[in-house]
């Protein structure tokens, strides 16, 4: 058994690690960075799913819409970056309010599948709205986020790392820290977790579900904006951006739908996993496995650990 597996599973790594440690490190780092980008999208899913039980198919489109709005404001009105970001945040908050008032207030007590279909509709609506408002050509995000390789790392240990990816990783770290503090320490954050635990009990102590859900959608919109900026800087703001939502699915299955740390760790595992798989196993399997590796991993998880790595701990008193 061991002899059969060794040349395929272990040997490439052992050899690469000893022969080309830098290349291995670069692969892992680029995987981590890609993973952070996935995590940013997955995070938006988790927030909404946890608090309201809605699987928000529109999360990817939300990121697209935010990025479109940001570039639209900057290109059409010549607003400076910081002002455009503030305006976009305001628009995303307004959108959260509208979504709750116009869509989900009318769907209280409906089946999850109906809520899911509503988000599907929302996704197409937002895509169309973004198109009508800002046009469908590929746009460039001009926020002055540094591009290209980090000279410092290239000169020092000789690693090739994109500056944008470092910025993305740092931003994600700040975002997650801020969210954690918000959830753990503030009154609204506590109410949010209470709603996630038990809707009825939350209502009974006077927490207004409607308000909490607006907050959740607003935070998800904020996360979507960050994701939109990062992806937009990397590959331009184009409509295929909404498809990154699909890449977030395996991340969610890995990390668990209800766990914020799960979304981060899941994203990292998928990111690193697919890069390593491509480089080391790709040749053996005919290449281009980066595209489906994440889904295979998710499938394996569904079979053996359906709640994901960090899925809701099921509390049972004995």
């Amino acid at each position: 058994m061991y002899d059969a597996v060794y040349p395929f599973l272990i040997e490439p790594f052992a050899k690469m690690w000893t022969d080309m440690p830098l290349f291995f490190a670069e692969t892992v780092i680029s995987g981590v960075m890609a993973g952070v980008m996935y995590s940013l999208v997955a995070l938006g899913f988790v927030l909404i799913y946890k608090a309201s039980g809605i699987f928000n198919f529109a999360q990817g489109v939300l990121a697209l819409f935010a990025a479109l709005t940001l570039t639209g404001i900057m290109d059409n009105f010549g607003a400076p970056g910081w002002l455009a970001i503030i305006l976009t945040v305001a628009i995303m908050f307004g959108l959260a309010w509208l979504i709750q008032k116009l869509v989900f207030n009318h769907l209280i007590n409906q089946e999850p599948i109906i809520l899911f279909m509503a988000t599907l509709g929302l996704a197409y609506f937002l895509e169309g709205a973004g198109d009508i408002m800002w046009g469908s050509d590929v746009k460039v995000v001009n926020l002055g986020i540094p591009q290209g390789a980090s000279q410092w790392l290239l000169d020092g240990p000789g690693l090739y790392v994109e500056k944008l990816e470092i910025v993305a990783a740092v931003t994600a770290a700040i975002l997650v820290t801020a969210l954690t503090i918000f959830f753990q320490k503030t009154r609204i954050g506590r109410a949010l977790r209470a709603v996630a635990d038990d809707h009825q009990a939350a209502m009974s102590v006077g927490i207004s579900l409607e308000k909490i859900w607006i907050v959740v959608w607003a935070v998800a919109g904020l996360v979507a904006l960050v994701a939109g900026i990062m992806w937009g800087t990397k590959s331009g703001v184009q409509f295929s951006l909404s498809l990154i939502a699909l890449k977030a699915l395996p991340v969610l299955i890995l990390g668990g739908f209800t766990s914020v740390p799960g979304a981060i760790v899941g994203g990292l595992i998928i990111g690193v996993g697919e890069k390593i798989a491509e480089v080391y196993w790709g040749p053996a399997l005919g290449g281009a496995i980066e595209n489906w590796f994440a889904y295979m991993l998710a499938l394996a998880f569904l079979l053996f650990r359906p709640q994901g790595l960090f899925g809701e701990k099921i509390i049972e008193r004995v």
Partner: protein
Amino acid sequence: MTQTASSPAPETAAASPLLKVNNIEVIYDHVILVLKGVSLDVPEGGITALLGANGAGKTTTLKAVSNLLRAERGDVTKGSIEFKGDRIDHLSANELVKRGCIQVMEGRHCFEHLTIEENLLTGAFTRRDGSSAINHDLDMVYGYFPRLRERRTSLAGYTSGGEQQMCAIGRALMSRPTMILLDEPSMGLAPQLVEEIFEIVKKLNEDEGVSFLLAEQNTNVALRYAKYGYILENGRVVMDGVAAELRENEDVKEFYLGVAGEDRKSFRNVKAYKRRKRWLA
């Protein structure tokens, strides 16, 4: 002794009761008629028990008052509910808590993944009087439930049933209510714990002036601590009276307290009783 739902306001109720439920009808899902005209009063500073078997409509009555019904597709279709003299049937639960009427739900419903202390703090969600007042009340709750102070950092999901019940009552107290709708506090608890919880309810009633509307299946305990009682059957109030008198009533003894008289009633008489009751309701 008063025995019917249509009897005039009981002596214990002052001129205008704190809570006045007037002939309400509740329908679930537009078709299922659950309450068929329930009326009851809770006086200021009273403990009023709502008794009856499974499915009699106790929980529905409480949820109609606290307005948690709509989340279960229930609707009050007839009658009126007044709290402190104002109609409240169309207020949200959130608004009601602000006005001082809060429900402790059946089965405790603590937030399992929050610590005991965080659970208590969620009860203060609607308050706007600053953290020092809230901390003061947190101490007050810990004073009544010393056990919660010991377990303040444990996740509520890992605490015992009794502790969860205390947590649920304490959480409601944190909203500084004038009235608590307490649904089945004895459910699944050891007799000694039930006694302990009811003692605290009594103390809260006397020291903090909180009024209680108490839904219970444990008729014996409930009638010892309540001042007035209503008995529900099939969505109707079939009997009401001062608790002490209800305890002595032959029918209540027979059907709810499980104490048979000297000679067992024959089945014929039981049927006669049921018939009479239906007619009265």
